[in-house]
C-alpha cells in the first residue's frame, strides 16, 4: 500500500512538473496566436484587442492557474482558431487514434510473442539467426518508410496489389464500420510490424532468462518437455516483464502514430496536434500536449502497479533491500 501511495504521489508531481514545462515553453513562443489570427497586416490595436479577449494579457501566473483550474474541472478550453471546445475535438480524434493503436498492438503482440517464443525454443541456428536478423532490421525501419512500402505494396491506386485504402478516414466515421476498419488496416500493420520486431527481442530475452533459471529445471523434473515447460511455466514467469514492455509500447504508440496518421491522412490525435502546432493554436496545443503527457504518465503508473501485482517477488526484494 505504501508503494501505491508513493507511486501515486510521483505521478501527481510529474503531472504538475510537465504542466509547468508545457506552459512555460508555449509562452516563450515568438509571434503569438493573436497576431496570427489578426492577419499579416492587422493594426496593433486589433492584435491587442484579440489578446485581451483571449486573456493573453493577464499575468502568466493567473493564466496558468486559470488553465489548471479548467483542467481540474474537465474544461480544456476552446480553440482560439475554430472556437470549438478542445475536449470534443480531442474526443473525435481519439475515436480514430485509439482503435488504431489497439489494432497496432494486436498486430505487434501477434508477431512479437509468436516469433519471440519460436526464436527462444528453436534449436536450429539458421532459424535463430534468421529471427535475429528480422528483429534487428524490423526495429531499424523508419515508420514513415515502412508505411510507404506497405502503401506501395497494398495501397489502392498506387500499390502493386491495390487492395486496401491508403488515404483518409470515412466522413461518417465508425457508423460506416467496414470502411473505417479498412482504412486502419495498413496504418495498424505499419505500427504493429515495427513494434512487433522489438517486442520479439524483449520476449526472447525475458523468456530466455526464465529458461535458464531453476524454475525450468524444476518444471522439467516434474515431467514437462522443454516446450511444455516454456509455454506453461516460462511464459507465465516472463509475463510481468512483458507487461511492462507492452504497457510502455502502448503509450509510445500514441506518438509513433503521429507520423503514421499524417502519412495515411487520418484525422487522429497525432495529426491533429501537428496541425494545431502549425496554426499556432496556443490553447489547443497546450491542452493537447498536456493530455498526451498525462496519458503517458498514467500508463506508466498503472504499469508499475500491475508489474508489482503480477510479481510478488518484487515486493519482498524492495523490502529486503530497505532493511
Amino acid at each position, binding site marked *: 500500500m505504501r508503494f501505491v501511495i508513493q507511486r501515486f504521489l*510521483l505521478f501527481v*508531481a*510529474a503531472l504538475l*512538473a*510537465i504542466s509547468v*514545462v*508545457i506552459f512555460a*515553453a*508555449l509562452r*516563450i*513562443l*515568438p509571434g503569438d496566436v493573436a497576431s496570427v489570427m489578426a492577419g499579416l497586416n492587422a493594426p496593433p490595436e486589433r492584435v491587442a484587442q484579440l489578446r485581451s479577449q483571449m486573456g493573453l494579457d493577464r499575468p502568466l501566473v493567473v493564466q496558468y492557474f486559470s488553465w489548471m483550474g479548467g483542467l481540474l474541472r474537465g474544461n480544456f478550453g476552446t480553440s482560439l482558431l475554430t472556437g470549438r471546445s478542445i475536449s470534443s475535438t480531442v474526443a473525435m480524434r481519439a475515436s480514430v487514434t485509439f482503435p488504431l493503436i489497439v489494432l497496432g498492438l494486436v498486430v505487434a503482440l501477434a508477431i512479437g510473442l509468436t516469433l519471440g517464443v519460436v526464436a527462444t525454443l528453436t534449436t536450429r541456428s539458421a532459424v535463430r539467426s534468421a529471427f535475429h536478423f528480422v528483429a*534487428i*532490421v524490423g*526495429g*531499424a*525501419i*523508419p*515508420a*514513415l*518508410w515502412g508505411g*510507404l*512500402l506497405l*502503401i*506501395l505494396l497494398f495501397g489502392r*491506386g*498506387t500499390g502493386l496489389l491495390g487492395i486496401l485504402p491508403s488515404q483518409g478516414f470515412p466522413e461518417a466515421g465508425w457508423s460506416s464500420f467496414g470502411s473505417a476498419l479498412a482504412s486502419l488496416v495498413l496504418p495498424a500493420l505499419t505500427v504493429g510490424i515495427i513494434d512487433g520486431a522489438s517486442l520479439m527481442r524483449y520476449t526472447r530475452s525475458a523468456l530466455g532468462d526464465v529458461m535458464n533459471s531453476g524454475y525450468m529445471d524444476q518444471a522439467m523434473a516434474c515431467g514437462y518437455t522443454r516446450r511444455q515447460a516454456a509455454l506453461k511455466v516460462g511464459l507465465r514467469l516472463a509475463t510481468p516483464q512483458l507487461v511492462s514492455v507492452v504497457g*510502455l509500447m502502448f*503509450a*509510445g504508440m500514441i*506518438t509513433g502514430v*503521429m*507520423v503514421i496518421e*499524417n*502519412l495515411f491522412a487520418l484525422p487522429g490525435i497525432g495529426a491533429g*496536434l*501537428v496541425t494545431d*502546432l*502549425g496554426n499556432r493554436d496556443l490553447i489547443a*496545443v497546450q491542452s493537447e*500536449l498536456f493530455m*498526451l*503527457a498525462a496519458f*503517458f*504518465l498514467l*500508463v*506508466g503508473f498503472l504499469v508499475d502497479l500491475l508489474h508489482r501485482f503480477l510479481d510478488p517477488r518484487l515486493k519482498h526484494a524492495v523490502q529486503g533491500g530497505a532493511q
Partner: protein
Amino acid sequence: MTQPSGKVSKNRGTKSSNKFAIVLRSIWRRGEGKFALIVLALWVAVSLISLVWTPQSLWATDGYHVWAKPSAAHWLGTDGTGADVFSWLMAGAHTNLFIAILAVIFAGALGILLMGAMVSRNSALSNVSVVAVDALISIPTVLIALILAVPMGASVAVIIIACGIGYGLNLARIARPQALLAANSDYVASALSYGASGFSVMLYHILPNTMPTIMVQLSLSAGTAVLAESGLTYLGVGVPSGVPSWGHSLATSVKFINVYPLTVLWPGLIVTVVVVALNVFGDVLRDAVDPVTNPELREV
C-alpha cells in the same frame, strides 16, 4: 624512485591503447561486427567528402529535367526541382552524422551527470534526481521535441536537445544499478577513507565501472537519433527545408509517391542500413567490452 613511477604511467598508457585495439579487433572478428564497422566508416567518409564535394551542386536546379531517370550525370535521377538526388543523399550524411554525434554527446553528459546525482551520498540530491528521472522518463522524445518546437520552430537543435534529454534520462536509469554497485563497493569505501572527494570517486571509480554500459547505450541511442530525425523532419519540427538530411529526402519524396514511387526507396534504405549498423555495433560492443565474454580483456 622516479623510474618505477614513470614506468607505471607508461604501462598505463599502452594498456589503454591495447584495450581499445582489443575491443576493435574483437568487433572486427565477428561477421556482423565487420558489417557495422564498414557501414559506419563509410558514413563518416561520405559525410566528410560531402562537405567539400558532391557530384552535382546541391543548388543546381534544372527545370527541364525534373524527376529524371538515373543517368551518368544524375546517378539516382533528379527530384521535383531538377536537383540531383544522389548529391542530396550524400550531403544528408553529414547532417545526420552531426545530429547523431551531438545528440549522443548531450545524452552522455546529461546521463552521467544524472547518474552521479542519483548515486550521490547527498540524500536530498539523490532523492530528487531519482524522482525527477522516474517522472520524466515516461515522456517520449517526440513529445519533448514538439514542446521545444513551439518556441524554437523547425530546427536541427530541436532534434538534438529532445534526443539528448530523452536518451540522457534513459541512460541514467539504465546505468544506475551498476553505478550503485560501484558506489557501495569496498574500493570506494577505502578511497573515501583516504579523503577522496565525491567528484574524484565519480571520475576514477564509478565512471570507469559504468563505461561499458554507457558506451553500448549511447551507440544504440545514435541509431534512435537517426530514426527520430526522419520522423521529426517529416512532422515539420526537425531539419528545416533547405538543409540536406535523409529525413528530408524521405519526407519530400513522400509527397510524390503516387507519381514517382521509386524515389522513396533510397533515403529509407540508407536510414535502415545505418540504424541496423549502429544497433549491431551496440550489440557486438556489449560482448567486446565485457571481460566475461571477451577473455582477452582480462589479460591486459
